């Protein structure tokens, strides 16, 4: 990666917005298209909100969340790592059922679905008791 930027994320519900704003500045300064910026912002927001809200329930130790942005070799990459409970959003998050009538639709559960569907590629691995999600977009 030619250009990288990393930030530590705190356990506060305002943090996703701060990270999204840092990403917006990083991506815009490096000429990423508005469409990709918007999609990645939403995915980052949803994933971080989820990690902060649910990722550390009953998990001992100090929570650590780290986000790294990278750009190079024709690729935009965003990596999100946390030491919370093991959670693979690609496999463990329930799929929303859009055929349900309005009054039966559950409130919530759309965040991970949005992230998965708006970003070109997302991969997950569990490594050294950390969840590692990598979002990539060819440029």
């Amino acid at each position, binding site marked *: 990666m030619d250009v990288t930027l990393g930030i530590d994320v705190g356990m506060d*519900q305002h943090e*996703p*917005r701060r990270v999204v704003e840092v990403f917006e500045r990083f991506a815009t300064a490096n000429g990423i298209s*508005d469409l990709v910026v918007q999609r990645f912002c939403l995915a980052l927001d949803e994933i971080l*909100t989820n990690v902060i809200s649910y990722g550390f329930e009953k998990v001992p130790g100090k929570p650590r969340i780290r986000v790294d942005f990278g750009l190079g070799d024709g690729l935009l990459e965003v990596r999100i790592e946390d030491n919370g409970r093991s959670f693979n959003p690609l496999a463990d998050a329930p799929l929303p059922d859009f055929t349900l009538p309005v009054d039966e639709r559950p409130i919530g559960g*759309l965040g991970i*679905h*949005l992230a998965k569907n708006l970003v070109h590629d997302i991969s997950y691995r569990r490594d050294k008791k950390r969840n590692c999600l990598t979002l990539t977009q060819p440029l």
Partner: protein
Amino acid sequence: MIAAVSGRVDSVNATSFEQELSKAMEGGSSRLVVDCGELSYISSAGLRILLLAVKKTRAQGGGVALCQVQDHVREVLEVSGFTRIMTVRDTVEQAIDSF
């Protein structure tokens, strides 16, 4: 009833969005038009509030219609399946006429 929403709606301010929409619906009208012309960003926290509004208005025989939706927000609505449960029109007048 017509409500306008602007800027960003995410988990930080979704609660105040919910309060504003509730206020707009207090008058008893079950038909709610939301002007999204100045709405630049919505996350699932905001969608949750829209879904609640749809449930509430539909239960009273009405519904929710959105208008002037920016491209990115429209994409989010489509991916979330929301365009199936609420009307999306170009202009405020068209949204009002959709009821």
